[in-house]
């Protein structure tokens, strides 16, 4: 494949995803809503991801604290460790790590699930039986990921900060009150709101990419694997691109 063809394919793919997204906004948002399936997906996507997100967030908070500590000690500002860790977790580490874990777990499962449904012609069967597959399968999942990822991020941040508190207490002693006060004294709405807003986009990106890859899966069982894999890869890359855009936009708005 020459570079031109690859570039054309890339553009084709991008266009298809854009169309798919447009279809979500045109079809998915209109009634009637599939409440039951939406809550079911929320349970699967949100609640079932919490242990994994919680574990990674806890470890991340603890490790980040212990890694930052020596350089802060070098500068003699060890007391500012909670401030630094708190800001890092709330502004960047929490949302991105949570979104990446989320992409790994949910993006792949959505891609594989929808892909196998597509391959086994279940989606076609749904169309025949009068259920709109896009509404039932895609809209519910995308909405669920979009709304669940911010919640997971907030919970993950909390667990991460607790891990950071333990991390501070490994080498020195800080009361929980002081740690809490220090973290929240440094935090402002300009730290929290952009961070939570961008997780909405992360969640949306994970959901839409997973659904698109699954929905357009081909070539039998092999295609299911490919669509699951590419869903994770693409959504992870998109998370970083959105993160980059988010930081630029907050900078432009003067919220940084």
């Amino acid at each position: 494949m020459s570079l031109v063809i690859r570039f054309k394919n890339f553009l084709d793919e991008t266009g298809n995803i854009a169309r798919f997204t447009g279809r979500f906004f045109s079809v998915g948002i209109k009634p009637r809503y599939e409440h039951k399936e939406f809550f079911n997906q929320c349970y699967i996507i949100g609640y079932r991801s919490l242990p994994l997100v919680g574990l990674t967030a806890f470890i991340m908070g603890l490790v980040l604290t212990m890694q930052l500590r020596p350089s802060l000690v070098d500068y003699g500002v060890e007391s500012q460790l909670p401030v630094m860790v708190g800001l890092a977790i709330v502004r960047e580490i929490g949302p991105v790590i949570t979104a990446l874990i989320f992409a790994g777990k949910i993006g792949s499962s959505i891609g594989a699930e929808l892909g196998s449904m597509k391959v086994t012609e279940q989606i076609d069967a749904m169309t025949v039986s009068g259920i709109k597959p896009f509404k039932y399968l895609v809209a519910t999942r995308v909405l669920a990921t979009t709304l669940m990822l911010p919640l997971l991020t907030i919970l993950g941040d909390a667990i991460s900060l607790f891990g950071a508190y333990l991390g501070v207490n490994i080498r020195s002693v800080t009361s929980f009150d002081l740690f809490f006060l220090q973290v929240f004294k440094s935090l402002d709405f300009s730290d929290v709101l952009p961070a939570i807003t961008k997780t909405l986009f992360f969640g949306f990106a994970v959901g839409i990419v997973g659904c698109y890859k699954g929905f357009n899966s081909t070539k039998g069982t092999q295609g299911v694997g490919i669509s699951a894999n590419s869903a994770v890869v693409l959504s992870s890359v998109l998370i970083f691109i959105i993160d980059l855009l988010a930081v630029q936009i907050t900078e432009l708005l003067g919220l940084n």
Partner: protein
Amino acid sequence: MGNQKVNNIKLGAFVLSGLVLMIFAFFIIGRNNNIFGNDFKLKVRFSNLNGLTKGNNVLFSGLQAGTVKEIELINDSTIEVTMQINSKVKSFINKNAVAAVGTEGLMGNKVVNISPVKGMSQKVAEGDLLQAKNMANMDEIIEKLAQTNNNVASISEVLKGTVLRIDSSAILKLINDESIGISLKSSLENIYKMTSNANKMTIGLNHLVNDIKKGKGTAGLLLTDTLVAGTLKDAVVQIRAASVNANSMTLQLNKMVKDLSHDLSNGKGPINTLLKDSLMAKNISFTMENLQKGTDGFNQNMEALKHNFLFRGYFRKLERQKKEQQAELLKATQQR
């Protein structure tokens, strides 16, 4: 559908906990920023903010009391800072309180420090303008410090020279010399002995003086005896009379000498003849020679007479009388 319901409950708990955490965080941050607080505002005008910005903390006696709400440039040398003050703290701030721009720690954020001033005053009201105290900023301090440093450097340079000179001076050698110390010690000991002796001496003198006062001893007698004093007085009177006599005598002598000298110079009287007549002097000298010769011859005759047996007895008798006279004289002196 039991399983579905359990799942929904779990989901509800999950969503609720997330939302509660989010609202809690927002509330804490909002409280830190005084968003939900009351709208009590105080103002202060500074000439220099040193980098104070909107949202910086306001401390009252070091206690978190609010935040900087607004900063407005009024003219080229006045900046008005509007501060939002906590409801808990506002009732403690007096109208005469002083506000100053400070720094959290050495390099931290800027803060507005409101400090109370002694003395009675009313409590602040909404929108009151507090007095501003302009603090020295870091640059000024560093500038001052640089001057001080220069001064210290020059002083230390001078001090160095002085110390070097002292180090090489003789006084230090003297101080370092151990023998001097030892001799100093011994001389000090001597001084100590001396002073103790002097002490003893003064005590003795004291006794002596006391004795004299009481009239003991010769000196005492001498000083205290009134009879002696009377005699002394008489003696002095007599001495005075004698001196008066002596005076008159010397006057007379003087007169006599004058007369004599007058006679001498005028060539009158026998003395003049005696002194001035050279012929007579020759004669006299001649006569004297003859006399000497005559006495020599007489001497020889007398010696011859002594040895003559007729006169020997008489001369012996003379000698014996002379010896007895001497012995008596000796006896008299010994008895005295």
